[in-house]
């Protein structure tokens, strides 16, 4: 009997192994993943000055879901959101010319520039060999100084959002996949489509992969106000458009066609290799609209003065890149199993070259070491080196006068003649990314795989870029060196494993459904506990809220004249919010260490957007060269913030649980992981300081968040009520203010139409105090949203919800719920935009 069983098992495994192409075996067909990433640049070396501009930081939020629509049909959709802000190099110039200057504001600190591209009206001195000369401010003497330095420019927070999907069909020994997506940010939009196929042969030990894609992108970038006066635009024709208020818009479009072909080959029973060749043809506008090239004009007709000096003139030009680019990449990946340690060594090599003169090599190695009990650790190292582009230079020298007066020998008329653009190179860029350099990075990832398909991953990587790391030497000078680090945390749920777990433990799952499928509206949290030690629940919660319409004072609508005269604490208001929206993504991780206690961790990620309009009847805005005037001018742009919010940590237990009635108590703390010190970038050479209070991502304080929830089941009805609150435990955060405390009372009833579908109606009363304290530091009050008394109020909403629990099939045990909150009453403190409504959507799965 045992022999027969063994034989059957072997036959089944053999069939399974043969059915799967080993080259693509591992990707789960059904999984959902959330990931948060944070990249932070280190400070740049500005030599004689120290920048007080924060280096660039990028927050990324990604989610990806793969599902099987049918036996052979796969669907995947992905969403990515990046928010970045901070300073990056706009150009490069000799240090002697003073590209970064001491800031006139923020006394006592020395600032990196708002972009300062033409110091001393462009007048500089060089020696006879055109080496930059620097003046000693004490002695007045000039000495040679060839040191280069970046000029930095800072950006207010901006957000990019990308959505894409793929649909795939699998045959026994082949597959085809088609996908499309779009990416949008303020100044750049792209749409793309792709087609890929795989053919397996040689008993599925070999796979041939082919793919192609098309991307269409458009740039519409507004040039920095502060940089515009110093940038030569005349040579760019229609690329630069002039709009109202001196705004200059750079427009362009590009197309990218790409194709790749590759082979994946099983080498032996413990090694795998893949070779891939790809080609990309790009046409159109490929320059970075925010990078400029400094050109040093030296009139060749002049002679050195008594100190050996020649006069030069620095002018800044928008960078010019070729309108065509052809890129080739050859990629090799090798995976070797290390039997004694059960580890996997991944070695990648990539060679890239293009017709811009760039050749790059990338070597990377990952060592994935399983440690047992679901843990694995992956140290990795990566080395990258590239040659510079043909048209790269830190700055240009042109042997002609930038402008000079010419006297007509006949008429004696004086004419000012500008430089001849034809004598400049056709293409030029000082973008450090096109220079010759090397980059070394190393990192570590830790993964923990729990039973039933839940996986958590955290990783960190340190990255260093240096001219001295270029393979073969000859890299860019050390002024361009920088470093940075990238961290990420990911949560992956294998949906196909869940469905397997369901079928094996249907009784257990039913129990969970009975407890979790109570029809609680999507907007209610802290309403249930886990019942058994070791139970785990994973959830995702999304909330959207919007405010727009006519501004209110209390419950009544006010006109612009009232706002101008009364909403800004005795001063004049200049603008008013027109539309404010917020997207919040929350991950819920619940775990029961004992039968009576449930712990919950809830990281949050959010983005906020605000548009403003000028108020009718407002006094004339001060000059743009004043801080207030600059702040008012900047309000014409949409203000955006995004990134990680505060993180909640909660302990829940049932204080009463009998006769279909429960009282659940939740005691929690919110940790100030969200930024409460976000500032707008300097503009019009003015420090705009902190962004509006309501745009900060976190409270900046430790907060106490208690909740008590009562629920009762009566036949097909579920009833519930909850009291909850948020008490800010500190009187102010490091920026100087604290959000108002919140009290909320809510009650709901839901009706179960079937055992898997219910609908709910809910009433909500919310009381929130106004802000306490005020920003300590520079901020400019241009509208009601900049005054702490114009926050909080009393609010009444009615909510309509629908709740579904997948009763069977592969998604059995997954809960989905949606709720729309319709405002009934807005009794606001001070002057505020009314709320239009809020949407909550949740997904959860209890193991």
């Amino acid at each position, binding site marked *: 009997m045992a022999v027969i069983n063994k034989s059957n098992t072997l036959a089944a495994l053999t069939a399974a192994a043969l059915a799967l192409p080993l080259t693509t075996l591992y990707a789960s067909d059904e999984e959902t993943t959330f990931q948060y990433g944070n990249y932070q640049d280190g400070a740049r070396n500005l030599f004689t000055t120290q920048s007080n501009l924060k280096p660039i930081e990028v927050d990324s939020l990604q989610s990806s879901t793969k599902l099987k629509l049918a036996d052979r049909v796969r669907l995947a959709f992905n969403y*990515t959101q990046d928010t970045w802000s901070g300073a990056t190099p706009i150009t490069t110039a000799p240090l002697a010319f003073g590209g970064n200057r001491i800031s006139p504001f923020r006394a006592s600190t020395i600032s990196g520039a708002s972009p300062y591209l033409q110091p001393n009206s462009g007048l500089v001195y060089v020696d006879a060999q055109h080496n930059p000369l620097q003046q000693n401010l004490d002695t007045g003497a000039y000495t040679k100084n060839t040191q280069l330095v970046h000029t930095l420019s800072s950006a207010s927070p901006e957000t990019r959002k990308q959505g894409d999907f793929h649909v795939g069909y699998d045959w026994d020994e082949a597959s085809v996949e088609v*996908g499309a997506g779009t990416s949008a940010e303020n100044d750049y939009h*792209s749409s793309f489509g792709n087609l890929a196929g795989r053919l397996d042969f040689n008993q599925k030990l070999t796979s041939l992969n082919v793919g192609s894609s098309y991307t269409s992108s458009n740039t519409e970038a507004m040039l920095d106000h502060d940089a515009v006066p110093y940038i030569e635009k005349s040579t760019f024709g229609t690329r630069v458009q002039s709009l109202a208020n001196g705004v200059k818009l750079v427009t362009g479009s590009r197309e990218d066609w*790409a194709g790749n072909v590759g082979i994946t080959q099983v080498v032996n029973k413990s090694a795998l290799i893949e070779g891939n060749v790809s080609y990309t043809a790009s046409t159109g506008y490929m320059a970075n609209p925010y990078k400029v090239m400094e050109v040093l004009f030296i009139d060749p007709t002049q002679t050195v003065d008594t100190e050996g000096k020649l006069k030069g003139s620095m002018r800044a030009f928008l960078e010019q890149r070729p309108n065509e680019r052809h*890129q080739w990449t050859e990629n090799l990946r090798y995976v070797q199993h290390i039997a004694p340690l059960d580890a996997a060594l991944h070695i990648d090599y990539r060679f890239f070259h293009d017709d811009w003169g760039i050749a790059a090599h990338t070597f990377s190695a990952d060592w994935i070491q399983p440690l047992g009990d679901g843990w694995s650790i992956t140290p990795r190292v990566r080395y*990258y080196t590239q040659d510079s582009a043909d048209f790269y230079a830190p700055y240009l020298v042109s042997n002609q006068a930038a402008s000079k007066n010419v006297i007509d020998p006949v008429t004696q008329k004086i004419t000012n003649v500008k430089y001849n653009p034809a004598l400049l190179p056709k293409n030029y860029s000082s973008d450090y*990314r096109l220079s010759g350099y090397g980059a070394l990075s190393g990192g570590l990832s830790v993964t923990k795989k729990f039973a039933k398909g839940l996986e958590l991953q955290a990783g960190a990587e340190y990255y260093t870029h240096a001219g001295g790391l270029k393979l073969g030497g000859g890299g860019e000078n050390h002024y361009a060196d920088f470093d940075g680090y990238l961290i990420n945390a990911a949560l992956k749920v294998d949906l196909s494993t869940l469905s397997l777990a369901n079928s094996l433990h249907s009784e257990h799952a039913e129990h969970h459904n009975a407890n979790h499928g109570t029809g609680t509206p999507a907007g209610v949290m802290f309403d249930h506990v886990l019942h058994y030690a070791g139970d785990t629940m994973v959830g995702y919660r999304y909330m959207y809220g919007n405010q727009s319409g006519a501004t209110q004072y209390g419950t009544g609508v006010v006109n612009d004249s009232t706002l101008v005269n009364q909403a800004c604490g005795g001063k004049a208001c200049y603008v008013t919010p027109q539309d404010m929206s917020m997207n919040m993504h929350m991950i819920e991780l619940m775990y029961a260490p004992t039968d009576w206690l449930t712990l919950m961790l809830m990281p949050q990620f959010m983005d906020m957007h605000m548009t403003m309009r000028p108020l009718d009847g407002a006094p004339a805005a001060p000059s743009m060269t004043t801080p207030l005037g600059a702040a008012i001018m900047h309000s014409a742009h949409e203000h955006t913030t995004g990134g990680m919010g505060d993180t909640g940590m909660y302990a829940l237990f049932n204080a009463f649980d009998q006769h279909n009635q429960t009282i659940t108590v939740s005691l929690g703390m919110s940790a100030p992981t969200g930024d409460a010190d976000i500032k707008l970038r300097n503009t019009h050479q003015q420090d705009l300081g902190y962004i509006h209070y309501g745009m900060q991502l976190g409270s900046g304080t430790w907060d106490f968040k208690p909740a008590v929830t009562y629920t009762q089941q009566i036949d097909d009805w579920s009833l519930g009520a909850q009291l909850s609150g948020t008490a800010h435990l500190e009187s102010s955060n490091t920026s100087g203010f604290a959000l108002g405390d919140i009290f909320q009372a809510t009650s709901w009833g839901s009706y179960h139409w079937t055992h898997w579908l219910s609908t709910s109606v809910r009433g909500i009363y919310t009381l929130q105090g106004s802000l306490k304290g005020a920003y300590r530091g520079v901020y400019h009050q241009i509208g009601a949203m900049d005054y702490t008394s114009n926050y909080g109020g009393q609010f009444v909403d009615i909510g309509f919800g629908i709740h579904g629990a997948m009763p069977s099939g592969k998604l059995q045990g997954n809960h989905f719920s949606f709720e729309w909150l319709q405002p009934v009453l807005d009794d606001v403190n001070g002057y505020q935009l009314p709320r239009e409504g809020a949407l909550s959507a949740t997904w959860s799965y209890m193991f």
Partner: protein
Amino acid sequence: MRGLFYVFMCFLFLSGCSSISPWERGTLAKEHMSLDPSPMQNTLRSHQYGSREAASGGSSSSGGGCGCY
């Protein structure tokens, strides 16, 4: 370097003549032997490299923004 690459590719084809029985494929089926065991983390890392290095891309899958910072 390119020549070496294509020699390697030919080797790939030739090595494909070897045969591995289904019951010898257990090791290859382990998750950490996958060509891309952490695709989402790699997407994040690639996006970051792409906004810091000239040799971005190199695959036919598309997307990503300007990286204009």
